[in-house]
């Protein structure tokens, strides 16, 4: 019964092509270098306007870490035509929601509004790009807010320092070595002059992409985009020339303490290529193979059968210049981190030494197909993908083609990539331990 089922299923998959709907869009450049992408979907009376700037935590000078994220806060303060502190109120009073987030590589602002407010969304984003008000008062207030955010998300939060430790361990010279949120002393040290110069350098139309998606009319929208964005002056070209890391060739071990945890975390970290590299896609597949789903290798062995781990995971923390690849586990009971590390390594070494099974390969393909369909399920998701694909991956069409990359990856390639990046002499062993005996 069982066997019969599998066989028919495999046959079925072989003959059914994916039917994921194509995401249609139109893209063009304004004269000032702003790239514009429009996606029309009139199902619900909702629009999203979003701007992604190619500036992130890594774009800073020494001693001024955390600037991009700090800026994300500052750029909600106000503009020459939007009174300071009224940003939230304006969006809310039209029933919209907005947010922004900053990674090491980019900053993303978006607002979702009922579709009769398209013009408002474009006006606000263009105001932010053209003439934000950056003054000492805003700097002072947001410095404190960001520091509270750091306390909340990093200092007071269990495993909150994990990313910081990974960055520090895997990078010596590239800006990825410092945390995206920055160091307290650098945040304190930011002066108004620094901040204004930063704005001038990075928040320019030629370093950004504008997405308008949802219940729009293409012709009308193009006109509005031109009305609000065409007169924003072009900035200097942004040049990035960050130091290159020399490859890790001998195993390192890092131990760190977190006062907010009770259960340690054992990790194996690797430095891998940036997300545009084909190998990064292959590594995504390896993560899924190792730890996604209850039948995945690491979960099944460490959590389920051997009961050594409470949780296990393999993640590609992908970034533009280099990625951070982490395989980790949280022990159950008395299991030592050493044991966890050798159990994890055993599975990783199998990926290096053997081809994964045909059945597992097909499973991976099915999972990526499912993820691909789901990633285009909301306008918000489509907007983010369009922006990222254009600005960071250099190919908007990936929104429809990304699945082809995964389809073209072979079992042999998976093995080859594991051999290229996931060797024991290329790894950093991470002991992330509870901190005991605090004062009082």
């Amino acid at each position, binding site marked *: 019964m069982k066997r019969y089922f599998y066989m028919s299923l495999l046959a079925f998959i072989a003959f059914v092509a994916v039917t994921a709907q194509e995401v249609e869009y139109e893209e063009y450049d304004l004269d000032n270098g702003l790239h514009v992408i429009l996606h029309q979907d009139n199902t619900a009376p909702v629009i999203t306007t979003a701007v992604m700037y190619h500036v992130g935590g890594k774009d800073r000078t020494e001693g001024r870490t955390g600037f991009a994220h700090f800026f994300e806060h500052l750029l909600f303060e106000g503009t020459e035509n939007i009174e300071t502190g009224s940003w939230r109120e304006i969006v809310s009073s039209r*029933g919209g929601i907005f947010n922004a987030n900053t990674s090491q590589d980019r900053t993303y602002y978006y607002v979702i509004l009922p579709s009769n*407010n398209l013009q408002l969304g474009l006006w606000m984003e263009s105001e932010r790009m053209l003439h934000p008000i950056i003054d000492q008062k805003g700097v002072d207030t947001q410095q404190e807010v960001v520091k*509270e955010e750091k306390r*909340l998300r990093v200092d007071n939060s269990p495993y909150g320092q994990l990313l910081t430790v990974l960055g520090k361990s895997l990078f010596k010279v590239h800006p990825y070595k410092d945390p995206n949120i920055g160091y307290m002393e650098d945040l304190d040290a930011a002066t108004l002059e620094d901040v204004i110069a930063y704005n001038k350098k990075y928040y320019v139309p030629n370093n950004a992409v504008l997405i308008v998606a949802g219940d729009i009319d293409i012709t009308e929208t193009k006109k509005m985009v031109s*009305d*609000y964005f065409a007169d924003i002056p072009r900035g200097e070209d942004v040049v990035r020339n960050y130091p290159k890391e020399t490859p890790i060739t001998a195993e390192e071990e890092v131990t760190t303490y977190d006062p907010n945890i009770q259960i340690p975390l054992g990790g194996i970290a690797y430095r891998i290529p940036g997300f545009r590299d084909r190998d990064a896609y292959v590594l995504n597949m390896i993560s899924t193979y190792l730890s996604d789903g209850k*039948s995945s290798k690491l979960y099944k062995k460490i959590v389920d059968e051997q009961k050594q781990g*409470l949780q296990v995971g393999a993640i590609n923390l992908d970034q533009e210049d280099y990625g951070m690849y982490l395989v980790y586990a949280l022990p159950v*009971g008395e299991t030592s981190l050493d044991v966890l590390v050798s159990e994890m390594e055993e599975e990783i070494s199998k990926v290096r030494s053997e081809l994964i099974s045909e059945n597992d390969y097909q499973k991976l393909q099915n999972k990526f197909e499912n993820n691909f*369909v789901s990633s285009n399920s909301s306008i918000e998701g489509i907007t983010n993908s369009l922006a990222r694909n254009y600005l960071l991956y250099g190919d908007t069409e990936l929104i429809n083609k990304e699945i082809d990359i995964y389809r073209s990856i072979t079992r042999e390639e998976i093995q080859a990539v594991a051999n290229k990046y996931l060797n024991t002499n290329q790894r950093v062993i991470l002991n992330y331990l509870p901190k005991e005996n605090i004062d009082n």
Partner: protein
Amino acid sequence: MKKLYFTITIALMAITLNAQVDRSVTPQPGPAPEINLNDPERFELPNGLKVLVVENHKLPRVSIQLTLDNPPVAEGDKAGVSILTGSLLGNGSKTISKDDFNEEVDFLGARINFGFQSAFASSLSKYFPRILELMADAAINPNFTQEEFDKEKAKLITALKSEEKDVSAIASRVQNALAYGVNHPNGEFATEETVNNVTMADIERFYRELFVPTNAYLVVIGDVKIDEVKELVSKNFDDWVKASPPSLGYSDPLDVQYTQINFVDVPNAVQSEVTVENLVNLKMKDEDYLSAKITNFILGGASVSRLEQNLREDKAFTYYSRSRLGDNKYGATTFKAFTSVRNIVTDSAIVELLREIDKIITDPISEEELEIAKSVYVGSFVLALEKPSTIARYALNIETEGLPADFYKTYLERINAITVEDVQKAAQKYFQIKNARIVVAGKGSDVIESLEKIPFNGRMLPVNYYDKYAKAVEKPKYDIVLPEGVNVQSVLDAYFEAIGGKTAVDKIQSLKLVYEGSAMGSSIKTEEKRTADKYVQTTFMNDAPMMGVIAKGDELFMKQGGNKVPLPPEMQQDMKSTIGIFPEQGIALSNKAKLTGTEDVDGKAAYKIEVPGSTVKATYFYDVESGLKVKEATVITMNGQSQNQEVNYKDYQEVDGIKFPSVRVGSMGPQMIETKLLEAVINVEVSEEDFN
């Protein structure tokens, strides 16, 4: 006037058709978009399972949600049985082993998850028949084994351990336990002990009694056809035996008699979790449901709301502050206003939370605030239409909450009808300023003292202490473990030694220190002159004297422009002990100073000397290693308001044989201001003039 301007703008636009848009005018919304609310398809099986289907063919995928809408049950000394039942469900069925089940779900690229009263599955629509079959089989014929039970138990205990230091987990556990009582389903919590009490038989009984179809709803959304769903659901769920869950009553919890602080000591906390809470009775079908929700929104429902505007945007105490007003068709739920703030402003945050709650109860809100709140509700209603799950959720609410069938069709109309008076009525009904609990989880050694001094309605807020499991305890004592022989005197001696030696210090007759920095675009300079019994400090902004403080003999006054303002005598008394060339000389002479332990300053251990006072409380920190003073923290309490000031001292540098900090970093309101030593003059000439 405004209208006129507007007409002119329009006229101009008409003439110069291609002119640029006028950026100074906020674009107005276009005509309101049309709203379509379709009803999902609905059918019911003979065993009572109700099925809602929303067809949506945009993407080739489907989701299936099973919800059991059963009344809450208390688990008592076996708390955790529900969590364990949830973890044991979805491990295959009586006929499919766990491994085969997991392998197949993964192979299809699908997901199936179970809770103890729910299940969820999603997949590409081409696998819908099989995923539905697997989910139904796992739900109706669960595969409970002793081996899995032992494993899940061990995992749950480890997970509970992992939360032992998690400030927010501790805070929310204590909030609920105190609000409802630990015997109430909403107030109880699992511990290692209660989890150990659970047996395999308990799991089976719990499942048998509660996992029944009477109150069950199955919601199918996606690329499916209603006829196919009818056929497949009948086929897979008909075997589910008809039964109803037990119905148990619980005594209603009560609010506290008077507003009080309930403190939980969490020594590792770098932020305090502060929550003001009271019980409420609110159901979706209540007449004032929407106005109650709008009221909570105005207070703290979002970032535009009052709490966040005050505590984040205005005071910069926190990253967020919100409030939540629950609703529950079965009885009591809570209203909570909460924030996470840095330790030093814990007391101020409480004051602000109470102030905001009191204000919305006492004063009518403005029309503008109401309009914004309504817009947000209208907007989020419209925005939600993007998701096919919304239609299903609305239909489910109508059934489970006993709402009129047109609840959502008249939603916008009813939102728009809410008045300022409705909001005030709701605030008075649902927010209890006089019977509130203020649950604080934070670092006791840093915050307790200031918590005991929060005035409220003419007296101090009482503070009760609880442990991490909501049990009442004595006020914690902070044992000071200090090396033998270390006391106030030895710390001060070490300090004098570090800055140049007692002999050299004693030779100084007078001292002038000038520090300079910038804030808010202006240069800030402070000049300090000290003799053995006199003190003057003047602050200059852009070289103009802004404010001065002068102390001599029994006088203490502030100087602003030409005016002298005497400060209260209590303050003068408090300041007395810090007069001297170095405040340490005064501290050494006074008998009020206490060495209260050590604390990290910038990552290094420092001795902490406290000098108490009725209005001014000062704490001095001396680096254990170097002996140098690294920080001063002052709390000034006047007219029921407290103000905190902190100064950190860095990079000592020698001037004429005495070391002075070359950098001072001080707090001024929410801002930190760094000033640098410009001038240090020993035995400078001072005259009586200087102190007038």
